[in-house]
């Protein structure tokens, strides 16, 4: 039996298929105004017996494909706990959401927090800041990683932070130090979100921003412990959906 999971995020759509023991396939595509068309395209030729959706487009998808939709909190919890068994704290930084989830020893959600409705401290925030510095994402990460010290960025509002960056550049600040300052800002916010759900050992960092190794190492420095990042952190939510489908199918046999 093949279970599929689809995570329709604000920036990207992630699809995973799972056969009960291993991931068979995974795909990541940019999202756009025609979400359902993109989903159909992604599913073309992918064999699966059942699917569950999550992410902002979960209800839209579940209406079109007549399937179950679960919250991102649940999807990321299932996906992360499967990838890193025994994890107790999850940090997910996606395109427009940041989530911190604390789990009990059995992987059950004990508390969760999400950022407000704006893009402050999310992947979108980093994209806009990279753009303001005229960097690609990889150049931006390299630049921040190479800086010795950081320019402080005080504003977490994406719009205000962008003007702060522009005025820093106008004052002659070093581009690398501004890059690091931006990375520090997002880390500060994420760590405070994790503290709200109380940081426990065995932290897993997932979502698209978990691919950013500078953010990862800054979080590690801040909380004073190593954190786990799965090989493909972006697909954690979609994997959680596929796992949930698989478990339900097994239980209903």
């Amino acid at each position, binding site marked *: 039996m093949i279970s599929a999971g689809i995570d329709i995020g604000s920036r990207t759509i992630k699809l995973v298929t799972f056969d009960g023991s291993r991931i068979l396939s995974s795909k990541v595509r940019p999202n756009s105004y025609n979400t359902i068309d993109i989903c159909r395209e992604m599913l073309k030729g992918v064999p699966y017996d059942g699917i569950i959706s999550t992410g*902002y487009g979960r*209800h839209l998808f579940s209406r079109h494909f007549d399937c179950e939709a*679960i*919250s*991102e*909190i*649940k999807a990321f919890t299932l996906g992360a706990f499967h990838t890193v068994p025994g994890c107790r704290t999850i940090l997910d930084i996606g395109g427009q959401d940041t989530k911190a989830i604390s789990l009990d020893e059995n992987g*059950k*959600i*004990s508390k*969760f927090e*999400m950022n*407000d*409705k704006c893009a402050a401290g999310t992947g979108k925030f980093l994209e806009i800041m990279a753009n303001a510095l005229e960097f690609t994402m990889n150049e931006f990460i390299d630049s921040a990683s190479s800086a010795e010290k950081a320019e402080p960025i005080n504003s977490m509002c994406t719009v205000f932070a962008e003007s702060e960056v522009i005025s820093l550049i106008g004052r002659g600040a070093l581009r690398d130090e501004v890059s690091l300052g931006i990375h520090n800002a997002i880390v500060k916010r994420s760590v405070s979100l994790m503290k709200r759900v109380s940081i426990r050992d065995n932290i897993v960092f997932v979502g698209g921003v978990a691919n950013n190794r500078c953010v990862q190492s800054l979080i590690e420095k801040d909380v004073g412990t190593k954190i786990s990042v799965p090989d493909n952190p972006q697909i954690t939510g979609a994997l959680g959906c596929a796992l949930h489908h698989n478990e339900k199918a097994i239980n209903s046999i």
Partner: protein
Amino acid sequence: MNKIVNPEPLFVDEYTGEPPAKRVLGHIQSKREQGAAVAGLYCGYAPMELIHAMDIVPAVLCAFSNAQIEAAEEHLPANLCPLIKSSYGFVIRDTCPFYAVSDVVIAETTCDGKKKMFELMSHIRPLYVMDLPQVPDEKEARDEWKSMILKVKSFMEKHTGKSTTEDKIEASIKDTNRKNALMRKIFDYAAMQPPVVSWSELYDVIFIAMAAKGEEINPRLENIIEKLEKRVERGYFHGQPESPRVMVTGCPVGGDALKIFKIIEELGGVVVALDACTGMKSFMDDISEDTGDPVGAIAERYLRIPCSCMTPNNRRLTEMDKIIEKFKPDAVVDFVLHACHSYSIESFKVGAHIKNKHNIPFLKVITDYSDGDVEQIKTRVQALFESI
């Protein structure tokens, strides 16, 4: 269980199917035609029994529409609580029918935003700001609040020509107590598992029961209880037997803020306890009778209202314990309006209490009257239900 659909509506009158405000407006207008004066109110601290005893009909003023906020922001800061902005927008645009028929307005110093907003509208209608003691367990608080009630009485006498006697106030206290007892009986049907009454039905009943005297509304309340009893006999219930039961606490909920109840229901939950001033709060407690000091008795009861403007407000937690014990919610949503600092700060204490004492999943939702965050709230509420 076979689901019985389309139960008999609790109210069968010309307002059935209309927003509950219309029924209340109809009530106020008919009272007015009979010679009553009208007092516009913004808050649950307004002494209803005194108002009724003076042959004045209370009118809860509009405060829950997003559409009024734009006009309000011409004068008020944007980062203010939506309830204050909406209230003010209604007044300056003259779009609140309750305000239009009010002879006087009674206001309270429940927060800085409201206090200063009242100053900006005090020239439009005679308005009295009652200075509310906010450390209610201090021994002076009762007498201070009693003297405020006597002052608002003089204010209403002056502007409406109405008056009253101690006996009438005492009778009004007893009238409220009888009404509250019937209201609590109605709430019992929400406490059932599964509930036999929906949040929107409760909301309709609460809306009219706030404005009307017991003697005016009690026969209808008794009729509603009979209908609810029949529902029980027929095996009707609201939602599904497995629907998560939700208690919503926090800021007042009405109009555009009803989105929180709608989201909970859309995601398969049932709202069984409405713990806000627009909900069950004002009916949960009685006023002492035959004390020989009816105004003092009223003062004491109102100071027991566990609003977050009070400090330390531990009464909110003990009242919540009672509500949880009775209504047995599976989850608690703390509804906080954007920039309502007192409820927002208190939420930390409430959340810890719910978690530690009751071990029920808890969710704080900070929002305004717009619908821009409905999807974000849905994600959180869905996750809350998944964590039950």
